[in-house]
């Protein structure tokens, strides 16, 4: 009996490439409505074009870099408390 071929769609390099393109397209598309809509801004800066996109990018990058930095001090071997 022939074995059923395993579903491995997300392992294929061409899928990963497609997903990358999709991600970039989505990122660009989300800023498009900013051309057409007037945003009610509470603080001024939240009314600028692409503000939330920039905020998302910067804050995530900073969070990751900061956690990497702090890891230098905080990361330790798994058996740390057993020693």
């Amino acid at each position, binding site marked *: 009996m022939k074995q059923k071929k*395993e*579903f*491995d769609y*997300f*392992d294929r390099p061409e899928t990963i490439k497609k997903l*990358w393109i999709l*991600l*970039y397209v*989505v*990122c660009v598309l*989300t*800023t498009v*409505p*900013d051309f057409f*809509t007037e*945003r*009610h801004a*509470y*603080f001024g800066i*939240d009314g600028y074009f*692409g*503000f*939330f*996109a*920039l*905020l*998302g*990018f910067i*804050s*995530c*990058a900073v*969070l*990751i*870099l*900061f*956690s*990497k930095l*702090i*890891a230098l*001090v*905080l*990361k*330790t*071997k*798994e058996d*740390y*408390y057993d020693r």
Partner: protein
Amino acid sequence: MIGDFPPAALLILGALLVPFFKGNARNWYVIILPALAFYLISQLQPGSSWQIHFFGFDLTFLRVDKLSKVFGYIFTLNAFAAFIYSFYLKDSTQHMAALFYIGSALGVVFAGDMVSLYFFWEVMAVASTFLILARKTEKAQGSAMRYILVHIFGGLCLLAGLVIYINQTGSIAFDAMTDRNLGTYLILIGILVNAAAPPMHAWLPDSYPEATVTGGVILSAYTTKTAVYTLIRGFPGWEILIVVGCIMTIYGIIYALLENDMRRILAYSIINQVGFMVTGVGIGTMMSLNGAAAHAFCHIIYKALLWMSAGSVLYMTGKSKCTDLGGLYKTMPWTLIFGTIGALAISSVPATSGFTSKSLIIDGASHEHLFWVWLILEIASAGVFLHAGIKFPYFVFFAKDKGLRPGETNKSMLIAMGFLAFLCIFLGLYPKPLYDILPYEVHYQAYTINHVVAQLQLLSLSALVFFLFLKLLKRTETISIDTDWFYRKGGRLFYYLMDKSLNGVNRFANRVFAEGLAGFAGRMSRRGPEIFTLGILIPLWSVSGLKGEKLQGRIETTRAALQTGTAPVGIGAALATIFLVIIFLLT
């Protein structure tokens, strides 16, 4: 009248009957109990009942208003789903512990006074410990021990605060606190221990991931959320909570990013999410208090869903570290789909429940023109997508295939996850039923074009950063030191320091006093008379012309005479006189 029966009593008394049921009947029984409690709560009329006079206090076991009801609904709803999830379980101890735990959580929520609240608060701590112990590993025992000790500490703070507060006000009623003094601050600290606010939070990521598969699901909902309820009731508008909440949101993200164990990621993400609620309470407007309650409601659902999907993976593979997992989408597609819905909801993607609830808190901040609070909450929202929204599903179900082929988890688990996933989307698309049961009237529209676009921008760019920085996020087999270090390693350091310092003093004293001074005193009492006598006689003899052998001979005979106590009477009398003079001079 059945309508006025305390739902807490239903679950706690119901727990006592669990051992009388066997096999599947027992599992059906524990599913039906919270469903009954849910119905009971829906029938409760606003007001106070079940007042009992006890040791000079008028206790109120059932205080019903919109706030207690919304928490009552979600506590029983989640219990219902959690017991469906644990249908496979053949352990009546765990079922009983869970029912006691959930029952006492309901007891806290419906308690009208602080004495009965405190009672249920402590029952909750004890009952929940058994859900950790039930894992029956050495690690679980250790963290259960630490868990209960931290909660005893928190409970003592709460108790001390209550005693001071009741003494000052003469009332045990539990309502919004306005006085800011030692009493109320101690109460606040006691509650914040349960809310897992840093630095008193480390019990959570230490213990929940060590609990059983189903224990983790149940634990994730009640302890922290009863704390949120208590804060909404007792401390609305306390500005310090804004600071505490904002710290929690960021703290949870940083640690979750460093974490390797999937259930520890979820544990840290509880701290992050509760941070949003605590901030909402601190802002204290009707909108933000509604937001805190709504977010607690939705959070319990999607967080339980995430713990369920992580639990299924643990149940099927026996593994929980990201470094051991990966590629599970091939064999656990349903767990992946439901887990991802939970992950999207926690990230408040539009059309999920997180979007309709968290927005109330964030908009609560911007309506009050709290710029920094608003900014931190937005940053934290982006961070949630990183650590819980993408990191958890990505490393567990995708990333690198580790060759695990566990197959899909059992049916009851899938049904429970499906039910909660449905609620996540339902409340995302149609939040009205939730808004209707919130403590204050809601005039809020989450779905405006601005708001949806802003959220989509924030999240899609967060996703982009995640994948651009993927190399930096690669998991390593490590843990991160947190504040539990102080009582886990700090205890040993304390022991070491005490050993070195106090025992050092001891050793020093022993050397100086026991060995040194005592010996000196002994030598002195034996040889003192001889030294004194010879000290006087030798110069005299030298002056009188005694030299060499003869002088030596005199010295020897005198020494021998003094040591044996056979000195001539004259010398003895002279010595006694000298001693008396010395003593006289000294005194």
